[in-house]
């Protein structure tokens, strides 16, 4: 019975979304306040309906209701309870339901926190979000119904993909979807602004916290995904340039550009048309990502089952949405105006270059991701683009970007002198350069590329210190007075520096070795000795494992005892899975996984030495924290309260 209720709730949600899309937009066009006010109630109603549907599906998973096809395909009665709850988003249909739930959640958040916006603005934003919801709800109901019944009823479920049975899986998809879907809000603000024709600094200020929050979620989602792939896929890779990773990375790149260009629009009133275009592009890339993952055009751990109908639906949705948005843009943007001018050497110029670099980087990733698919679709043969392409092209784009991150915050708005910047920064540049030249000498070999990467990373760190020193004299009282958004910027930039340094180090100095080891034999890499102590069988709740023991020593010192596993999942017809074992550290990870069993208890074993790999994720965390700090800035609320003297807490917060 519950699945039918869920299905009914979904249908209702679609109907409500249609109302949410049409009535407020029509109201805004005809200045009908009652119609515009309805947007909020529709958003609440839609969220309620989707939440009911989501609850029904979750209940079906918890109670092992294998009469529902999706549950039977993605769960199993032996699966632990928490994985049964997370299995809801382990497949295509359920993850789409989560996506829609997130979208409805964002809409409700907008409805709640947009009371101070002009009524027509909030009505238009919610209306556009309603349109987006219509697209996704329609997609789910017509091509991917999670509540489809299975007849005859399965006695036992097919089980959740073992690779997804992991704590990382609990957080990765929801965060990623939060980010993906969050950019719909930025898009909705942009479209609302185009519709109303009032595209000014105020609009940018409204849009900024939302965009930043979406970006924070996407950053966390991507970081977690990379971290999860690193230890869960068992082979030590943290970024594969896999089409699905690229699908989330492209909107991240343009979203990063969007955050910066919004800052310019808010502070200086320039870049307006460009900002709107970026918001549209970013949203378009999230739709493209949905298409790549859900249409079956690619194969990977993420890709869901092949169904051409789904691909066609999303592609059509993509074409209609982006086509209409760009048409609206072409019609409205010329009337937007240019805003203030700026000199050749100014913060605006540097941010413009930042935007160009980020968009070019996204275009480069897009080329490598979509070209093989296009060739295949045109029948021009199957090709793939090797990861070296991305590596060779990406680094030269990111290094200047990191240098800009160091310089930018110290350059004045509107007009500055290159000589003044150079005088300010030369000490930091020299210090960073010397440190970058010396640091690699502690490791195996010296390469100019790595030195350059370290230089930009270190320079960012030093420049942050310099900026804080100039502004506050580094006194606690001064630091405490800094705006959260200012601190947030520095935190995020520091995070980027950590990522740059981490990537440089791990790419240059990681050691990987596949080696055949019999019990008692050992191997040496990077000064560590790994002794294999054989394996023993260890049964898990829904799998059998061969558990190995590897003792790691360095000289006389015992470092760790690692237990990599090779698991076999009976419910998946003996699907094997490699479970790596890691010893994590500040400056390096040691990583062991079991490959193939050989005769006499010997195994092929892979051992890794990964220097500075942890810095990657520490960097992601800092970036996300920085974004949160920036979005939390009271400025966004205070000035709005000034603009529209309002009631309750907001007004009280000012006194």
């Amino acid at each position, binding site marked *: 019975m519950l699945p039918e209720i869920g299905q009914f709730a979904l249908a209702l949600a679609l109907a409500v979304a249609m109302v949410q899309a049409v009535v407020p937009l029509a109201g805004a066009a005809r200045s009908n306040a009652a119609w515009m006010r309805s947007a909020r109630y529709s958003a609440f109603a839609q969220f309620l309906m989707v939440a009911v549907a989501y609850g029904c599906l979750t209940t079906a998973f918890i109670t092992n209701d294998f009469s529902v096809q999706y549950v039977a395909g993605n769960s199993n009665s032996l699966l632990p309870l928490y994985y049964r709850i997370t299995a809801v988003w382990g497949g295509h249909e359920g993850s789409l339901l989560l996506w829609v739930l997130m979208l409805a959640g964002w809409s409700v958040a907008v409805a709640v926190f947009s009371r101070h916006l002009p009524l027509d603005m909030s009505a238009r934003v919610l209306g556009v979000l309603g349109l987006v919801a219509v697209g996704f709800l329609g997609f789910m109901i017509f091509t991917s119904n999670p509540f489809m019944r299975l007849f005859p009823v399965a006695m036992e479920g097919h089980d959740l993909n073992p690779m997804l049975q992991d704590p990382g899986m609990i957080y990765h998809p929801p965060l990623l979807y939060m980010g993906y879907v969050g950019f719909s809000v930025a898009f909705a603000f942009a479209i609302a602004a185009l519709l109303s024709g009032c595209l000014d600094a105020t609009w940018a200020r409204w849009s900024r916290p939302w965009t930043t929050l979406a970006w924070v979620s996407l950053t966390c989602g991507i970081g977690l995904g990379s971290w999860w792939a690193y230890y869960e896929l068992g082979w030590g890779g943290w970024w594969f340039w896999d089409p699905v990773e690229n699908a989330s990375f492209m909107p991240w790149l343009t979203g990063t550009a969007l955050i910066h260009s919004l800052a310019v629009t808010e502070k200086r009133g320039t870049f307006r048309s460009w900002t709107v275009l970026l918001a549209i592009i970013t949203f378009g890339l999230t739709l493209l990502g949905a298409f790549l993952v859900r249409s079956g055009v690619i194969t990977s*751990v993420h890709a869901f089952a092949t169904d051409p109908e789904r691909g066609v639906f999303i592609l059509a949705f993509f074409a209609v949405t982006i086509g209409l948005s760009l048409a609206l843009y072409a019609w409205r943007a010329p009337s937007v105006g240019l805003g203030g001018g700026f000199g050749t050497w100014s913060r605006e110029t540097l941010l413009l270059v930042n935007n160009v670099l980020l968009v070019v980087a996204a275009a480069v990733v897009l080329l490598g991701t979509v070209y093989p698919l296009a060739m295949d679709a045109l029948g021009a043969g*199957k*090709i793939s683009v090797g990861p070296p392409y991305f590596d060779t092209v990406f680094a030269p784009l990111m290094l200047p970007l990191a240098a800009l991150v160091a310089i930018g915050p110290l350059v004045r708005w509107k007009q500055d002198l290159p000589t003044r910047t150079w005088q300010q920064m030369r000490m930091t540049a020299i210090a960073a350069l010397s440190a970058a030249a010396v640091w690699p000498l502690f490791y195996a070999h010296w390469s100019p590329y790595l030195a350059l990467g370290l230089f930009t990373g270190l320079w960012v760190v030093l420049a942050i210190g310099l900026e804080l020193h100039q502004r506050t004299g580094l006194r606690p009282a001064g630091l405490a007075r800094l705006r959260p958004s200012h601190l947030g910027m520095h935190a995020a930039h520091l995070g980027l520096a950590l990522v740059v340094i981490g990537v440089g180090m791990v790419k240059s100095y990681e050691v990987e070795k596949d080696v055949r080891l019999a019990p008692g034999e050992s191997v040496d890499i990077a000064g560590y000795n790994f002794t294999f102590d054989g394996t023993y069988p260890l049964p898990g709740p829904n799998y059998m494992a061969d558990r190995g023991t590897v003792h790691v020593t360095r000289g006389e010192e015992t470092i760790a005892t690692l237990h990599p596993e090779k698991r076999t999942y009976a419910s998946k017809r003996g699907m094997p899975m490699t479970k790596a074992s890691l010893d994590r550290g500040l400056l390096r990870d040691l990583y062991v996984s079991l490959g193939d069993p050989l005769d006499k208890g010997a195994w092929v074993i892979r051992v890794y030495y990964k220097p500075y790999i942890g810095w990657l994720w520490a960097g992601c965390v800092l970036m996300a924290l920085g974004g949160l700090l920036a979005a939390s800035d009271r400025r966004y609320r205070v000035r709005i309260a000034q603009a529209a003297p309002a009631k309750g807490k907001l007004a009280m917060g000012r006194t």
Partner: protein
Amino acid sequence: MTPRKRRLVFAAGALAALGVATTLVLNAFEDNLVFYYTPSELHSGKAPASRSVRIGGLVEAGSVQRDPGSTLVRFRVTDTAVTLPVTYEGILPDLFREGQGVVAEGRMDDNGVFQARQVLAKHDENYKAAEVTEALERAAPHAAAVAN
């Protein structure tokens, strides 16, 4: 410099930078394209010897042999018409099985052995990589239709 002149210089510089960047990107792109061939095509010498290619097919049953002293593995990949010997050093993916589909990336050596640098078998058991299906279809359209 007048503002007009300065803008011109700015635009010219930007265009030049864009041109150089595009050239470099397309160059790197061209160098890293990995083309896909079936064992039959490889056998008839269609693939360039100079670059890395991908092949796809089924791992022939009973063909997997491990070198006792090292991590070297030998197996044969077939598209039912032509069977190709492959060597690979390292750990095979979890889903690598005899009789199942596989995609390997590498190049042919002078002895007609495909030296794989990478072996892929990452899809689940009831799904075949598109490359593998295509290899079987190109080699023997009828047999593949029956097998599916």
